[in-house]
């Protein structure tokens, strides 16, 4: 599988570390922390997710990938990812 790193270009998935669903956002208080840490939508379909380009530019990237087909429709730097 290739991932389109916004900085480096198309790269083998082996260069990346996977974290998971990008949807949960860290709450600023204890409220919602359990949901944030443990609960996932586990979407069958397009999902925004975080990958770390560990063997490349060392940036966290938000990739939109369909979990049924592995087709990738978007990838942006996570820091620039508007939520």
């Amino acid at each position, binding site marked *: *599988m*290739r*991932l389109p790193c916004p900085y480096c270009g*198309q790269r*083998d*998935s082996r260069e990346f*570390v996977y*974290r998971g669903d990008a949807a949960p956002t*860290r709450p*600023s*208080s*204890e409220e919602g*922390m*359990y949901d*944030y*840490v443990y609960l996932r939508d586990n979407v069958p379909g397009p999902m925004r997710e*975080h990958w*770390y380009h*560990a063997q490349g530019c*060392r*940036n*966290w990237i938000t990739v939109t990938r369909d979990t049924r*087909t*592995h*087709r*990738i429709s978007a990838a942006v*730097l*996570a*820091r*620039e990812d508007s939520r």
Partner: protein
Amino acid sequence: MSRLSFGGLIDRAQPLNFTFDGMKHAGFAGDTLASALIANGVKLVGRSFKYHRPRGILTAGSEEPNALVTLRSGARAEPNTRATTVQLFEGLEAKSQNRWPTLSVDVMALNQVFAPILVAGFYYKTFMWPAKYWEKLYEPIIRRAAGLGQLSMEPDPDSYERAHGFCDLLVIGAGPSGLIAAVTAARAGLRVIIADGDWVLGGRLCSERHVINEAAAGKWVDDTVAELRATPNVTLLSRTQIFGAYDGCEYGALEQVSDHLGNIPPGKSRQRFWKIIAGRTILATGAIERPLVFGGNDKPGVMTASAAATYVNRFAAVPGRRAVVFTTTDSGWSAAEDLMSAGVQLAAVVDPRTDSQPPAAARLRQAGIEILSGAALTDVHGRTVRSVDVLLKDGSRRRISADLVLMSGGWNPSIGLGSNLGDRPVWSDLVHSFVLNTAPPGMKATGAAAGHFSLSGSLADGVRAAEETLRELGRTSAVAPAPLAGDEPSASSPPWYSRGHRSKAFVDFQNDVTDADVSLAAREGFVSIEHLKRYTTLGMATDQGKTSQLNGHAVLAAATGKSIAEAGTIMSRPPYLPVAIGALAGHHQNTAFRPERRTASHEWARERGATFVDAGLWKRAQWFAHPGERDWLQTVSREVSMTRSGVGICDVSTLGKIDVHGPDAGILLDRLYINMFSTLPVGRARYGVMLREDGFVMDDGTTARLGEDRFYVTTTTLNAAKIMQHIDYARQVLWPELDVQATSVTEQWSTYSVAGPLSRPLLQMLLPDLDLSNDSFAFMAAIELRWRNLPARLSRLSFSGELAYEISVPASHGEMLVRALFTAGDAFHAVPYGTEALGVMRIEKGHPAGNEINGQTTAADLAMGRMMSKKKDYIGRAMAERPALSDTNRPSLVGVRPLGGARLRAGAHLLPQGRDPLAANDQGYITSAAYSPSRGQWIGLALLQGGAARHGELVTVHDPVRGPDFAAEICDPVFVDPEGVRVRG
């Protein structure tokens, strides 16, 4: 059974000697092992899987299920190799398999006597009594009888390499449609990779007799291949099998670099594993001929019609003297003509069809060949073919003598790669087989793989596929039309099988699945094709159903009254053809399995006699044995004692090191650590602990503040990459608004710990201008300085509990520093110490390390609960407050010392004294243990329920996997200098 004196793609000027089961034979360059065996009159080549039935050569391609041999010998022995795809080389050695004692006399053929019992799934119904007998009796017999070839059990002596390919267009298969597609795309300027498993390109054009542009088709192939070779934007890979389609338009391929050589030159690899990224893909993999299902269709001498044609046309090898052709396709008739041209006597052509006959029928009839329309071959007689029974149109049977049976049951497009990504093929009534409905992104099938079985249709389709690709890629070049091909018949009937047979009729040859097995499975409810596959093993042999799947489904459909389209088919999974595990591993074998990271002092340590140990990918000095030392324990104890009494030096460069810079660096660190860092003064270091967001301890280390906006963070060796990633997550994803930068400098600094009461004077010799006194350089001081005009860092940190420093220089000069330290250290009898002594000293001081920070412990468990700041939020704070994490009865850190001289071992469990060794009494375990020269006994750290409150209590150390129980006392985890006087000395 001989070699023709004319024709074929063999080089009669290059004879090659080879052996099969020790018998000497000769073939020619250009032969496969199979064609050479045929030319030498060898009919019996192997034994089947279950019944050990004699088997010959069924096909002329990679779909071969019967003619499997062990190629080569010794460590290079390669079991289950298809004789039909092995290119003959001088001195080739092949052995038959799955037989004992010999191929012609195989004791296990006795299985055939029990065949009425050994039906599909028989083992599920028996062998249950007595229960104990399964592993001891039944299963070993089954295991020995099964299997095919034998591994040498010696390490693979060959090397393998990898390669990467990128192209606009990948053409899979170099037959007529593949070649024309590739050349059309190449002329338009696309970067093209064309790959074919064969060493000769041209596909069916090598095997069949055709005319293209009014010349023999071979000329067109030669011209086209020459053009491709001369085009710089084309990579032509022969002997290269694309074996799998993966996500992201990625393809796996195996190139046989040296398999066709008798001896592999030193250094040259045997095979090359390609990963190819293709913008577009044209699947031009052709089609595979279906066998027909009739009694004895597995016997040596029965082969597919196309295979027989290939042997006479390409290899000039004649597989029999007198043949019966049994065909439900027009191509079977063409094969009959090819054989006749090669001098084979045609006893009869049997075709169950009555409605239509190809033009060849008239020609054959004219030549006096008997044509039996509306008839079917039912049974084959003889150990190898001697005669056949034909059920005539009128219902009577006739026996015809023959030594060769050609069967042609239709063509299955080779679309396996097209369904690798989950696209399910669909039935086509047009071609009577499964074709691709949808294909993976960027892929299109062409030629016979798309059901265009005629040559002219195939060539035209290849041009169309290339044109379409060009259009999709926005290229508008004019495209030359397909060359003119003499057309030929291509009609076939739907899958068909003979019901009038009296002997076993095979569907899956290698796995011995018969039509009766399929019917039985249907009766027992295994009517889903997946259940059928699993219950009967249909299609699970080394050919992965290439010759069997569809016939099996046809029999199932017949048994259940469904159509094949309704029954559906199975999606193909990689690899399309079996791939050597060694090739997929590349050069990652033996010590090259993973890279080995070396510190700057590696060479120096080796000179000093270090024994090295793995720490992740790092090699670290474990200890430095002196001549005459009894064992490692004596060595390590000396290193500890001399460090505690004098000075010792240890390379600690493998710790993770991260520069965290920027105006908000302090804020970020406050959020990462349970304790405060924004308040740390410049020039000071502080020990910190990080939690995961779920509240458990993630890592620990010291962080120094080197400037107002410059922090220098250290991590444990094993977590270095993980913490870098964590910090980047925090600053890029969680809090992108912070102005903070982080970069790994693990590789930049070679760091040595100089520990012991004499560490100060030793260091002073290296740094004469620096005031190292307690007043100006106190415990936890950290500064930047220069040493020998190099940037350097010095901090007063201690893992050992002694007065100690850590000094760092750029790793390029790390060896210089360690040598300088020991030159200066001579006067102080400085000792090098390794990771083992480091571990002993940290256990003596009760410092937690990886054994305690194991991802299952909280800060409170490790007696660091008080470090958890209440003044700020940080990662893991909320979750650490969950009831089970703040439960006071959780196991927490204690010290353990045995009564008497017993040896403590990490991993031993702790039970209350006098209780039975039961899970209910399990109260904790020893996390770390060491022999403490300072205390003169074994000591340990443990996690024990109720922990700190139990100092002084006696417990039972329970370690049944290593030895008997003994008693130990729970104590404070700090065994040496509990007041911490030395470290501040």
